C-alpha cells in the first residue's frame, strides 16, 4: 500500500514538480466474507473428486506470498477421466438439451456470477495480484456479461451463419492464462456452451481459485454433470488435454511459444484450434492528439493489470514534434500511480503475478539498460514481501532492441518516435505479432486510414484496452487465429455444413 507520504518521497526532484499529490487514506477491501477452502479437488462430472495423482500444490497470494489454499494436480489419467465425462455429457445429455433450455442454464451462470461478484473480485485479487479496482469493475462484471451475451446466442445460431447448418464440435479443451483468470474462463466457456459443446477448462497454475469458485457456481446452476469440467494443474496437465485423442477442439490463450507447440501437437488430427497469443502492441500518438487524454490512454494501455495484458500498448510511438510534452506528462502521471496492496481500493498497480514473471520482467528491463535505453521509474517504496515492479518506461529505445521486440508482460513501456504516418505504420507493423494497436489523433480520416493499415485484430482509436462481449477480439500473424467475443466468437465452436 502506498500512502501520500510515500508518494511524495518517491518523486525525484525536478522530475514531476507540477504533479498534484493527493492524500489517500488506506481503504482496504474486506475479506472476511470470503471463504477459501483449504484444499480444492478436481471438478469432474459435476463433483469435486480427488486427483488420481494424489498430488496437490499450493496456490499463493503474490502480494504476500502467503498460501491461500492447495489445489489438485491433474495427471494424464485425471485428464482422461474429465474427457470421458465431457464426452458422456455431450452424447447423452447436452446435445439433446433444447437450445432455448441451454440458453437458460448459461443465463443462470451469468446471474450467479453477478450475485457473488464481490467474493469473486476479492479472490481474484488475492490469488492473482491485480488491484481490486480492476477485478471489481472490469474482470468480474465482464465475465458475467460474457455469459449473458452468449446465453442468448444458444437458440439463434443459424442467424450467425447464413445458408449453413450449424453443429457443435463436441468436447472442447480450453487452456487459459493467469492474467484474467475469471474473465478468460468466461470467454472460453460461454461461447462453447452456447454452441452446444461440453468443456474441460484448465486454469493457469498460479490462478486456479476463481475457476474453482466458478465450478461451484456451475453446480449451483444445476448444469448437467460433465458439461463443464474444471481441472487444475501446470503445463503437463495442459499438454495432456491437448494430446487427448477424444478432444474435438482446443482453445488456448497464452504465450506464442506455447501456442506454436500446441499447433504442432494437433497437427494431423481433426481437432479444431483457436489461439490467442502474445502481442507487442504499438500505441501511436500524433502531434494533433489531445495529449492529456492520450497520456491517460498510454497509462491505461501499459499499466492496466500490471502490464500482464497480451494486448498491452507496450510500444509507444510519439510524433517527434510532441515528444517533449508527452514525456513530461508521462513522467508526472506515472509518478502519481499508486503501487501496493491490491486489496486497497486506491491501488492502481498491484502485485506481479509470480516470482517467475517478476524475474522475466527484470531480465528484460536489464537488457534495455544494457542496450543503452534510458529508464524512468518513480521511486517506490515497494512492500518487502510479495512480487512487485514499479511502473517503468524507457526512452531512446531503438527499433531492434529486445524491449521493443519481445513481449515483457509487465509494467514496462518502450517509447519510440516517428516523423510521418508512413514511418509510424512501418515501425508499428514491423513485428511478428498483430494483436492490437492504438492511435491517437483528432483527424478522422487519419484514424480510419491508420486503423485500416495497422496489421492488428483490435484497433483502439482515441481509447485503449476496452473490452466487450459483443466485440470480437483476436490476433493477426503470430498473435494467433480465431476470434473471441461477438458473433465471430461462435465460429470457434461450431462446424458448418
Amino acid at each position, binding site marked *: 500500500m502506498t500512502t501520500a507520504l510515500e508518494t511524495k518521497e518517491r518523486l525525484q526532484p525536478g522530475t514531476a514538480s507540477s504533479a498534484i499529490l493527493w492524500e489517500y487514506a488506506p481503504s482496504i477491501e474486506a475479506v472476511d466474507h470470503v471463504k477459501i477452502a483449504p484444499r480444492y479437488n478436481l471438478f469432474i462430472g459435476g463433483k469435486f473428486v480427488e486427483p488420481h495423482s494424489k498430488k496437490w500444490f499450493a496456490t499463493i497470494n503474490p502480494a504476500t506470498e502467503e498460501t491461500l489454499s492447495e489445489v489438485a494436480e491433474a495427471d494424464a489419467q485425471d485428464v482422461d477421466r474429465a474427457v470421458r465425462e465431457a464426452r458422456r455429457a455431450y452424447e447423452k445429455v447436452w446435445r439433446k438439451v433444447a437450445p432455448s433450455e441451454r440458453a437458460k442454464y448459461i443465463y443462470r451462470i451469468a446471474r450467479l456470477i453477478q450475485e457473488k461478484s464481490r467474493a469473486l473480485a476479492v479472490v481474484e485479487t488475492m490469488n492473482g495480484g491485480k488491484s481490486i479496482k480492476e477485478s471489481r469493475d472490469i474482470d468480474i462484471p465482464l465475465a458475467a*456479461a460474457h455469459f449473458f451475451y452468449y446465453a442468448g446466442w444458444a437458440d439463434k445460431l443459424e442467424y450467425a451463419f447464413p445458408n449453413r447448418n450449424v453443429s457443435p464440435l463436441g468436447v472442447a479443451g480450453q487452456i487459459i492464462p493467469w492474467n484474467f483468470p475469471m474473465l478468460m474462463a468466461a470467454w472460453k466457456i460461454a461461447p462453447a456452451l452456447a454452441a452446444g459443446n461440453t468443456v474441460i477448462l484448465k486454469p493457469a497454475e498460479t490462478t486456479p481459485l476463481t475457476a474453482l469458485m466458478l465450478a461451484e457456481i456451475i453446480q449451483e446452476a444445476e448444469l448437467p454433470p460433465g458439461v463443464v469440467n474444471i481441472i487444475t494443474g501446470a503445463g503437463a496437465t495442459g499438454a495432456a488435454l491437448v494430446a487427448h485423442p477424444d478432444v474435438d477442439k482446443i482453445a488456448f490463450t497464452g504465450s506464442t511459444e506455447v501456442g506454436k507447440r500446441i499447433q504442432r501437437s494437433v497437427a494431423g488430427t481433426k481437432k479444431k484450434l483457436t489461439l490467442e497469443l502474445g502481442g507487442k502492441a504499438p500505441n501511436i500518438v500524433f502531434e494533433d492528439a489531445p495529449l492529456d487524454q492520450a497520456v491517460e490512454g498510454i497509462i491505461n494501455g501499459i499499466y492496466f493489470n500490471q502490464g500482464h495484458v497480451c494486448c498491452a500498448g507496450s510500444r509507444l510511438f510519439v510524433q517527434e514534434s510532441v515528444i517533449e510534452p508527452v514525456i513530461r506528462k508521462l513522467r508526472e502521471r506515472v509518478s502519481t500511480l499508486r503501487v501496493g496492496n491490491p486489496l486497497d481500493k486506491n491501488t492502481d498497480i498491484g502485485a506481479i503475478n509470480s516470482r517467475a514473471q517478476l524475474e522475466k520482467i527484470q531480465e528484460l528491463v536489464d537488457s534495455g539498460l544494457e542496450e543503452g535505453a534510458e529508464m524512468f521509474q518513480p521511486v517506490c517504496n515497494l512492500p518487502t514481501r510479495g512480487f512487485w515492479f514499479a511502473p517503468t518506461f524507457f526512452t531512446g529505445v531503438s527499433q531492434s532492441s529486445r524491449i521493443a521486440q519481445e513481449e515483457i508482460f509487465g509494467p514496462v513501456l518502450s517509447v519510440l518516435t516517428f516523423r510521418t504516418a508512413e514511418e509510424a505504420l512501418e515501425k508499428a507493423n514491423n513485428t511478428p505479432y498483430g494483436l492490437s494497436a492504438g492511435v491517437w489523433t483528432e483527424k478522422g480520416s487519419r484514424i480510419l486510414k491508420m486503423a*485500416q493499415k495497422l496489421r492488428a485484430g483490435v*484497433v483502439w482509436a482515441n*481509447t485503449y484496452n*476496452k473490452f466487450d462481449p459483443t*466485440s*470480437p477480439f483476436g490476433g493477426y500473424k503470430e498473435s494467433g487465429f480465431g476470434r473471441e467475443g*461477438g*458473433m465471430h466468437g461462435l465460429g470457434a465452436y461450431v462446424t458448418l455444413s
Partner: protein
Amino acid sequence: MTRLNVRKTYKLYINGEFPRTESGRSYPVKSKGGDLLANASRGSRKDLRNAVQAARKAQSGWGGKTAYNRGQILYRIAEVCEARAGELVDELRGAGSSAAEARKEIDRMIDRWVYYAGWSDKYPQVFGSVNPVAGPYYNFTVPEPTGVVGVVAPEEPALLGLVSRLAPVIVGGNTVVAITSESRPLPAITLAEVFANSDVPGGVINLISGLKNELVPWLAAHMDVNAIDATGVAAENIAAVQQTAAENVKRFIHFDAGEIGWTDERRSQSPYAIFEFQEMKTVWHPMGM
C-alpha cells in the same frame, strides 16, 4: 512436306512474368497413355522465394484496390477464359480428359470466377458487423486479407481444383503463391497466360510447377507466408505440413472435396471459403459531442 509445328515452352508464372526456373531443371509430363506432352519447369526453393517476394510486394496494392475493381478483374478473368476456352479444353484433353469432360470442367471453372467476382463487394457485408458495446463507443468489425497465401492445388481436376481454391483467396485481397498439380501442370501454366492478359497485377497470382515433395515443405516453412491451403497435399504429408506451418502460426486450411466436391456447388464454392483467408479487425472509437 507438312509444316513442323511450333511447340510451347511451359515456364513458371512469377510477378506477372514467365521466367524459366532458376534451377534450369524440368520434368516430363505425360498423358494418361504415357506419351510425352511437354517438359514442365521443375521449380525450386529459390523460385518459391522469388514468388513469395513478388506476392508480398503486390499484396498491399491488390488488397487496397476497391472491391468493385477486384470484382471486375475477376470477371475479366472469366471473360478471357471464355474467349480462350478452346485452348484450355485442348490442354485438359491433352492431359487425358475426354472432350465432354474437358468442356464441362472449363465451363465450371469459368462460372466459378464469375461466382467469386460477384462476392468481392458483398462478403464484407456478410461477415462484418457493427457491435453494440455497453458504452459510449462506436465499434465495428471488418474482414481484411490475411496477406500472402500458399495454395497447394489438388492433382485433379487440374484446373477446376486450382481455381476453386485460388479464386476465393484472391477475391479477398490476398496474393497467392500456388503449386500446381504435379501430374497435370500444363493447363495451369496456360491459365497463367489468361491472368497475364486480364488486368491481374503482376505478383497477385504466382504459379510454380514442380515436385510437391520438393516444394511444399518450403512453402509451409516460409516465414512471410501467412496461410497455407493444403488441399493438394497428399494425406500422409498433411501432419508434417501442419507442423511446419506452426513456425509462424500460419493459418492452415485443408479442403476435402470428397467424391463429388468439385462439382457440388454448395461444397466447393461459398463465401466461407473467402472467410477462411480473412482476418477480422475490430475498431473502437469513443462517441461524444
